[in-house]
């Protein structure tokens, strides 16, 4: 009889232990990053000339806006968590004007900083390997001899009686911009999403204000590309707002 009790007792202990491990021990889990697009203090709308030309006359419209966010790291108290194949093509032509990245199976830690690069690292930029959202046959690819566009903005500038096409395709390895965001309080896997603002206007109006009429397109001119890259280094910021409904016009 004793043996039976010992067996039952052991089983109960093992079950209780497992339950503790399952529910109370620090678990890995997911971390969600949410990116909310706006244009200065206005909401992002496509195909309408709503936004004043930062450095000159006229108003501009946006037909397409896409950007590679890559090499995402979470800086923790014990470790750095590096997301594998971290190449995320952010686009906002959806109803919520939001782009969401869910990092799953992030090991438990208290993470204080998020690191995100805008662009594609040199090694991946010169490779044909389709990793993450990198696609050599995609809209963001130039030819394999040139690499990827890191950021794509296409639209138009409406001035008094004229319409000017706007094409900003910015790439080249030197224009990779690494950003570090110190979180107001640490997060652990399973915490609420981390919200970022994506201010499209920063591309034309941050480090330098750009007159779209004098610079309506940027592609392969290295100086122009680097000018826009200095600006898009200010594209992302940690969101301070509590609510995340699209801003009103």
């Amino acid at each position, binding site marked *: 009889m004793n043996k039976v009790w010992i067996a039952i007792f052991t089983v109960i202990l093992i079950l209780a232990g497992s339950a503790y491990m399952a529910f109370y021990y620090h678990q890995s889990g997911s971390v969600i990053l949410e990116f909310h697009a706006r244009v200065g203090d206005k909401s992002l709308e*496509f*195909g309408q000339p709503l936004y004043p030309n930062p450095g000159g006359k006229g108003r501009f419209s946006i*037909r*397409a806006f896409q950007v590679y966010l890559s090499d995402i790291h979470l800086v923790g108290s014990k470790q750095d968590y590096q997301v594998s194949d971290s190449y995320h*093509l952010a686009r906002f*032509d959806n109803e919520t004007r939001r782009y969401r990245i869910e990092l799953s199976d992030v090991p438990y830690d208290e993470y204080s900083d998020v690191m995100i690069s805008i662009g594609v690292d040199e090694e991946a930029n010169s490779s*044909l390997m*389709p990793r993450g959202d990198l*696609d*050599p*046959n*995609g*809209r963001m*690819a*130039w*030819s*394999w*001899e040139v690499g990827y566009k890191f950021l794509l903005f*296409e*639209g*138009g500038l409406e001035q008094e009686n004229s319409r000017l*096409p*706007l*094409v900003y*395709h910015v790439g080249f390895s030197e224009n990779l911009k690494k950003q570090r965001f110190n979180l107001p309080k640490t997060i652990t896997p399973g915490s609420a999403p981390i919200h970022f603002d994506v201010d499209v206007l920063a591309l034309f109006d941050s480090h330098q204000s750009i007159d779209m009429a004098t610079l*309506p*397109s940027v*592609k*392969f*001119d*290295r100086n*122009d590309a680097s000018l826009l890259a200095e600006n898009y280094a200010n594209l992302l910021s940690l969101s301070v707002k509590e609510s995340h409904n699209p801003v009103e016009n």
Partner: protein
Amino acid sequence: MALLPQQTGQMIASVDCELMSMPKVAIIISGFAVLLLAVAIIVLQPTGPQTRPLLSFSAPFVFGHFNIPADNPLTAEGVKLGRRLFYDPLLSANNRVSCATCHLQQLAFTDGKAHSVGVSGIPLPFNSMSLANTLWGPQHFFWNGRAQSLEEQALMPIQDPNEMAQDMNELIDKLRADEVYVRLFGAAYGEISAKNIGRAIASFERTLISANSKYDQFLRGELKLNTQEERGRKLFMAHPDAKASLRGGNCIDCHSQFLTSGFNTQFDGFTNNGLEAEETLEPGLEALTGLAADRGKFKVPSLRNIALTAPYMHDGRFSSLEQVLDHYNGGIKLSSTLSPLIFEANNQQNDSTLSLNLNKEEKQALIAFLHTLTDNTFINDKRFSDPFSKQVQHNE
């Protein structure tokens, strides 16, 4: 799945060995477990036909990812059935028009006409599109993107009054009366239904991979392009930037570098390439999305085998590649939805005309490159040919 019972048998045997030293209760419990497992295997066994995965299927690395719908895996049986359906005029109301009537293998599955003609004899508004490499590029089919899968697409021409004009219920009756089809559908999908007709034709279409053109051989490092072709390739791959002294043909802005098709993300593979001014813009993609910003946008086709697929554009308005190049080189018409990439592209600085301003040699070089996309292996591949042809049957 056929191997499962055998595998289970081996597993049971080994489990029994390990249980030898345990008390009787444990043996009884594990006996129940094994019984339960056996019942589960019998109950969960799919009831559909036993099909074989398609072994001959391969695609170049540079074509990248593709998706085959989970509910229509590529099987040898499905593809065989799809090929027969594709070439069978039984699928039309008058039993004289098949899919292959407008999609001829020798023309890379186009028909050489500006406007295809079906059962009604009334020319269709659109040009027959090549079926090469449909696994890649925009996964919205037809020139205006109105079909959201190849399965859906395949059933539409069959029932269109001007194409094959075939009532679907009647077609199912015709197929059920044909013992070859009863056998082929039985082997591939179990039953004859509209859904399975779509699945089979889509499966066959997915196997139509063109990947052995001169350009492919160049990409594999097997040969060099000649000087003119190489110049054309470089122009194809470049958006012109007069400021950076880079001359370009601007093709790659819409036609991806390896596939030469439109982009597969959302509707990025649809564009307005300046065929019409605002007043005469056709709806195009707007017919599907209802968005004014999509008016005049059409699907960017793959340029694979483009030298074989004249006439060009969704309405077949250009009869030669020279005319196509002339369009991009001075024939562009301005409208509100014109692609800014075409609007802006100009090889000449401070020039406000809507033209690429390519010179004669550059145009010829681009055309020479476009000819390297012709794939003779593809247009002569027996696996894609008419299974009703006697010559082919001998070769099988």
